[in-house]
């Protein structure tokens, strides 16, 4: 039971990193990325393949993040003229294509059998303590990423980014390098997602295309939205909440008699989907509301919700 709990908490940390990626790209950058799971897979395969060829794991995680980030930059550069709706379709398609490649390029990815026996850092040395170590490692990554991201989003870069999100033309007129900001943000967000993928691969020691279905993107959207998709803290809290919900439904489903395995699985996915719909209806801004949006952009919100920080931030003053 303890090892199960530790595994789940580690998984929550992986989800938290992905949610941070989504908060960066979507919440702060205003760009849609329905292809999260694609970047996750890129990071996972890159890190796993490198470590199988003998590269030290710390380095493979870094390369996995970098590769995912660069793929993100390439995708967002190619799609730069696209509006939100089109970007949604293209990113969704991107994730499907990644899955197709992973399924069919057997020489590289092992095809639908996947890659097994992926090494994990210090596993032989630590033995029974390894799961606890990995739990700390994943949450250390998530914690550091959250701290750095918080600082970054408070910096002139973050302010300019939100200006682009809220009104691209105004930001451009104010002299902000719109395209550059968007590319950097996509890099950052997809690199975080790729890092999560790498950590996941070394956590489970086995990856296969089946693990990279669009459902995972939905989990992360649920996590980020539940917590408040513009907030770093929301991503963390939301990820833990989603893992609790996912695992909770597993226990509830086990108590319902007469269900077969397919029915249990589909009932859980159904609950997740309905949960996301309900949260979007009841509290579309999530548990932790946005604190730095201008009052004018959200006519429904009370004037008090726009913080002093936001009103003290003239868009044009950023470097």
């Amino acid at each position, binding site marked *: 039971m303890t090892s199960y709990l530790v595994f789940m908490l580690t998984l929550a940390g992986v989800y938290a990193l992905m949610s941070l990626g989504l908060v960066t790209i979507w919440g702060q950058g205003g760009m849609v990325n329905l292809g999260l799971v694609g970047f996750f897979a890129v990071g996972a395969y890159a890190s796993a393949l490198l470590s199988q060829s003998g590269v030290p794991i710390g380095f493979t995680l870094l390369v996995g993040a970098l590769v995912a980030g660069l793929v993100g930059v390439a995708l967002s550069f190619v799609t730069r003229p696209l509006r939100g709706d089109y970007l949604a*379709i293209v990113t969704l*398609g991107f994730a*499907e294509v990644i899955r*197709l490649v992973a399924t069919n390029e057997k020489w590289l990815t092992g095809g639908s059998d996947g890659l097994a026996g992926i090494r994990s850092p210090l596993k032989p040395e630590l033995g029974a303590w390894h799961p606890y170590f990995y739990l700390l490692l994943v949450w250390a990554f998530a914690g550091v990423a959250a701290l750095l991201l918080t600082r970054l989003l408070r910096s002139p870069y973050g302010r300019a980014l939100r200006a682009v999100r809220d009104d691209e033309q105004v930001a451009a007129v104010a002299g902000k390098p719109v395209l550059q900001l968007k590319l950097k943000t996509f890099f950052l967000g997809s690199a975080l997602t790729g890092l999560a993928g790498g950590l996941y691969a070394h956590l489970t020691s086995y990856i296969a295309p089946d693990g990279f279905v669009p459902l995972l993107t*939905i989990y992360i*959207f649920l996590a980020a939205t539940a917590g408040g998709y513009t907030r770093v803290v929301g991503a963390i809290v939301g990820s833990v909440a989603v893992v609790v919900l996912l695992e909770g439904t597993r226990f509830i489903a086990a108590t319902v008699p007469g269900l077969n395995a397919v029915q249990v699985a589909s009932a859980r996915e159904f609950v997740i*989907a309905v949960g*996301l719909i309900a949260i*979007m209806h009841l509290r579309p801004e999530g548990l932790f509301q946005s604190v730095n949006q201008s009052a004018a952009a959200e006519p*429904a919100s009370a004037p008090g919700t726009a913080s002093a920080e936001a009103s003290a931030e003239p868009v044009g003053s950023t470097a």
Partner: protein
Amino acid sequence: MLLELIQLIVNGLVMGAVIALPALGLTLIFSVLGFINFSIAAQMSIGAFAGWLVNTQLHWPLLPVLLVAFVVAGLIGVASDRVALAPMRKRPSSHMALMVAIVSIALNLALENALRFGFGSGLNSFEMPIARDVVIGEIRIGPQQMHNLGIALLVAVLLAAFFTVTRVGKAMRAVADNPDLARLKGIDPAKLSNLATFIGMGLAGIGGALLAIDTSVDPSTGARLLLIIFSASVVGGLTSLGGAVLGALLVGVAAEVSLLAIAPVYQSAVAFVAILAVLLIRPSGLFAGTAGVRK
């Protein structure tokens, strides 16, 4: 070689004709309601299952089967839209279209899993009479493909008539062309939304049933083709109904002809590349409305 090419083009046109129906549905819903309804994939599977039930349980023939697919998918489409999506659309938010699109993905997942809960994830097939391929010259066409082509054409003609003759149809086209102007003329897009959703999801249902007759009935029948359908809509410009049909035929032919060069497993990837290529040349799609005012 030439013969092979012609055969692939014929196959592509048949495939395109079937894709055209859900693509038309997607385009219609996007035109009138202003968001991308991802739950179209689940509605295709719903249509396939509804048709399969009356076909295997009551032994109904093809045409009534398709009518059932249309009505059931249309009704469930409207009901789920009312429950899950319509209240979201009323929120004043600059990200409204996107939020609704994300909710529609969740809705898709919910519907697909409801099907899986009820019917399992195994593959089922229709009871349709097996007939021999028709051979013209050296080009082969299966009778099922002929049916599909004929039915897709029939539905397209009926739709064209609906959009050019009836008042409601004209109003829908007006909204698709220019929603602001339509509103000025006294057309309320909100009032058309139920009907647009019904027809759009009904078309997805027919498309799903036709595809399932050709392949198999299972909860992810629609999801497998989602990318190709989006590709057809995007190539067509997302707001042009005629464009959706042309886009579907183009994407269908492109996906089949690409078999000369690449493995069949990458057919969806061709659709993805088609989306990218078209959007890079014309960011609003090949056949987007000439007015160019829709933002």
